[in-house]
């Protein structure tokens, strides 16, 4: 089977060669010691300062009219995903629905958001339609709708659960047993179900509240946007120091669950066909021995291993936090656990880019050629004359893909160390204690980066 298998992959990446693995691993260590040796002594990113930029241009870009237009377009696309799912071809790679949801949106927004800010918020079809309905009801009845108080102790847990469900559908339900990919019809049904659930929750707890806590896409994409230097505050566009948005992100409960899940699902997707393939197959046989059908056995084994991977990722992080407390007992375990959570965001982004860059690169060629001209894949339309285009698998060489994969892991490693060091010096006034506490974080980050490298280098059986 193809490593890093995906509902749409008809091509897998070649594993990175041994020499490149060795080089990258040594650079991780060299870079880490460089970071330690040249560490700064005053926190640089705790400052949430923000300065307004481009007020005139923003008056147009951020205007109500543009927002309504974006909302209508995104709602239209949501409807079209359902339509294409039901009416389009059953072949996943030729149906607009799968590539649009699982590649263009799902992989595009994290990367864009990390550089440009929270781009999903203004185009979120559920949020924008919810606001429109709330506005209309307000106009008709003359009062704002009452909502239940959102249980704040739940925090981002509903979003973390939604993230697991979304990925489970894609890589466990969709690829299990005999079917090679998720069917477009399942995507359409899931979209309807998720929309109904989201609108119900928005009606109960309020549109904005649910968008910040429970609506999985908003919460997940927003997490990456905290890395960016741009942020909209009180309707105004402004600039802040890049990365400074992350430092207060984890003050909400469930944030650790969300970022651990983000890392864990990518790890599982990378490991299931490589590093964990034999273990999963063994488990499938055991479940089959118990009388489960093939599909049930594969899904059961995959689910079990996904849970184990999520626990494993959490364990690596918690070990680092535990180690920090062996240096100094000034802070409670739960306190430290929350205070370093944001350092995992760059790791999550690095994993995402390392594992899905090539899929995104190749599949976007489909998105903007034949999936645009013939979105249903039935051959009945050729809107832009590109219906007969194909994907050029030679458009980028394997070496370039390797360097992008390694580059993203190294950059993620460096940013994570930067954030961890910055947090440590803001917690401990004694620089020596701060530095010693960071040996543990350093070990933890090296663990994550080596794991990422290992997954990329795993020669498929």
């Amino acid at each position, binding site marked *: 089977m*193809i490593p890093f298998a995906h509902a749409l992959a008809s091509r897998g990446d*070649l594993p990175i060669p041994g020499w490149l693995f060795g*080089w990258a691993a040594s650079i991780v260590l060299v870079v880490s010691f460089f970071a330690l040796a040249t560490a700064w002594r005053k926190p640089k990113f705790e400052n949430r300062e923000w300065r307004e930029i481009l007020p005139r241009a923003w008056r147009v870009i951020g205007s109500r009219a543009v927002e309504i237009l974006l909302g209508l377009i995104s709602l239209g696309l949501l409807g079209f995903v359902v339509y294409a799912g039901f009416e389009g071809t059953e072949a996943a790679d030729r149906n607009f629905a799968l590539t649009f949801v699982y590649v263009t949106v799902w992989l595009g927004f994290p990367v864009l958001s990390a550089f440009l800010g929270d781009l999903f918020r203004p185009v979120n079809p559920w949020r924008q339609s919810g606001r429109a309905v709330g506005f209309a009801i307000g106009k008709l009845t003359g009062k704002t709708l009452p909502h239940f108080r959102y249980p704040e102790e739940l925090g981002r847990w509903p979003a973390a659960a939604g993230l697991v469900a979304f990925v489970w559908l894609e890589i466990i339900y969709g690829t299990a047993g005999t*079917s090679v990919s998720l069917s477009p019809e399942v995507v359409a049904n899931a979209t309807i179900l998720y929309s109904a659930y989201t609108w119900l929750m928005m009606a109960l707890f309020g549109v904005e509240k649910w968008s910040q806590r429970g609506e999985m896409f908003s919460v997940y994409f927003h997490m990456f946007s905290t890395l960016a230097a741009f942020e909209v505050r009180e309707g105004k566009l402004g600039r802040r120091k890049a990365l400074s948005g992350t430092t207060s992100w984890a003050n909400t409960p469930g944030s650790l669950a969300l970022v651990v899940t983000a890392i864990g699902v990518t790890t599982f997707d990378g490991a299931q066909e490589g590093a964990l393939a034999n273990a999963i197959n063994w488990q499938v046989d055991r479940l089959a021995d118990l009388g489960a059908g093939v599909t049930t056995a594969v899904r059961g084994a995959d689910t079990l291993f996904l849970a184990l991977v999520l626990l494993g990722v959490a364990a690596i992080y918690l070990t680092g936090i535990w180690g920090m407390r062996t240096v100094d007992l000034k802070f409670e375990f739960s306190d430290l656990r929350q205070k370093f959570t944001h350092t995992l965001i760059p790791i999550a982004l690095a994993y995402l880019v390392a594992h899905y860059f090539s899929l995104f690169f190749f599949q976007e060629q489909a998105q903007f050629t034949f999936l645009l001209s013939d979105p249903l894949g039935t051959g009945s339309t050729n809107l832009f004359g590109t219906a007969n285009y194909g994907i050029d698998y030679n458009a980028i060489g394997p*070496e370039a893909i390797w360097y992008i994969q390694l580059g993203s892991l190294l950059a993620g490693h460096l940013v994570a160390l930067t954030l961890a060091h910055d947090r440590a010096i803001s917690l401990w006034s004694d620089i020596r204690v701060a530095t010693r506490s960071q040996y543990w974080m350093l070990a933890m980050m090296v663990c994550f980066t080596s794991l990422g490298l290992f997954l990329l280098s795993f020669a*498929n059986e």
Partner: protein
Amino acid sequence: MNSNRTRLLALLAVVVVAAGLFLVLKPSDDKKDDSTSSAGTEKVASSTEQTVEAKTEKPKPDIPEVSFENGEPAGGELKVEASKGDTIAFKVRSDVSEEIHVHGYDISREVGPGKPVTLRFPADLVGIYEVEMEGGGIPIAELEITP
């Protein structure tokens, strides 16, 4: 400023070490050429399962085979390894009428009981590609093409 200069020197050292290690570790292109090219002659990709070494002096090298029986590839998926520019060749037998589909290369061929098919095409796309029985969506072989 002193600490800034230290930082700059350390950064320089990191870059030098990184570049140095890269140059030492990266296999030279000459070596790569020696191991992969066999100028002018057709080289058939060897199968790891059958451990057949494609030898250029052989007039007709053995072609790896996969047999599709009872809804699955007998003996597991066939692995075919090749370098870019080689010719990939493998034979498929099947106990049912099906359509063979090579992903990425987008090659489709009919196969049926008593009508084995030999697929032969140049390995011009690098990466890992699956070959499957299109009707049932069952993978039967995997091509690994290195640069």
